[in-house]
């Protein structure tokens, strides 16, 4: 189990490094720092309680991986952070999101998720086909419920928390990766044959 978490941690680190570069470019050279805390693997019951505040309004950008490698991936950030980020990208000064603001957030999420998917593709040497990303604004609890329900037969939820900050903006968010369990086993076996955790320390 520890090796599996190490493997996911490595995936998270590679994905985060891609995402940092991507987001930094989108924020137009604002100095951006992004940290990836240790990957956590939780049961569905634990995941449901992972939410700090079920009532908090959040913005979620999600995609589903279909084809060879299956799973769900979502990027969730508090509504206030999402508005700050949208204003920064569109040059607006709004308290609510408008259509172009939502579109900008969808693109940021798309690029963040794309960075992780590219890292996963690189590690597994497999082409990954994601669905068209979607954006939803709702209560944290409702979003989690639909993510977990949409994940179908998956038994474990892997959470890679991302927290990023800039000198000008205070932003935070969660990147959630839920690999299909059977596929994850196969992927881990494939990658672990040529990857030793201690070599990456």
């Amino acid at each position, binding site marked *: 189990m520890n090796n599996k978490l190490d493997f996911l941690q490595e995936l998270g680190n590679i994905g985060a490094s891609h995402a940092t570069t991507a987001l930094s470019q989108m924020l137009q050279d604002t100095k951006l720092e992004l940290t990836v805390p240790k990957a956590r693997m939780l049961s569905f019951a634990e995941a449901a309680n992972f939410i700090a505040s079920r009532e908090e309004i959040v913005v979620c950008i999600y995609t589903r991986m279909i084809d060879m490698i299956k799973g769900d991936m979502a990027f969730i950030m508090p509504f206030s952070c999402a508005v700050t980020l949208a204003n920064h990208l569109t040059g607006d000064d709004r308290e609510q999101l408008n259509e172009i603001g939502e579109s900008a957030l969808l*693109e940021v999420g798309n690029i963040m998720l*794309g960075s992780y998917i590219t890292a996963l593709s690189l590690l597994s040497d497999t082409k990954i086909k994601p669905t068209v990303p979607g954006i939803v604004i709702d209560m944290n609890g409702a979003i989690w419920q639909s993510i977990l329900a949409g994940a179908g037969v998956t038994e474990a939820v892997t959470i890679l928390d991302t927290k990023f900050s800039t000198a000008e903006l205070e932003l935070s968010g969660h990147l959630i990766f839920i690999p299909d369990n059977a596929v994850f086993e196969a992927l881990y076996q494939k990658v672990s044959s040529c990857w030793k955790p201690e070599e990456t320390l």
Partner: protein
Amino acid sequence: MAKTVLITDDTAFMRMTLRNVIQKNGFHVIGEAADGEEAVSKYKELQPDLVTMDITMPKMDGITAIKEIIKYDANAKIIVCSAMGQKPMVIEALNAGARDFLVKPFDAQRVIEALHKASS
């Protein structure tokens, strides 16, 4: 006369960003498409000199749209702009007939260079 460009991306923000970059650098944006299906139909209608193409889009994805456009016009000049930088996807797009592949978020200069290179 300025070369004409058809922008294809399912997010309005990215279409707006690309439009700003392209228009400021001597090209003329002749149209926008929000999915692959619309890109194919607008290509036939507007006959642009160049096309920017996203990959992951509703209705018809970018790879299928590239194949459809190339089937109609073997000399179509298509540049992919996608958040998915997976090697197999890049190869598939180039094999389908794309001239270049840019991974988002792209540098404005890189977009213009790719457009100039494809149109020369």
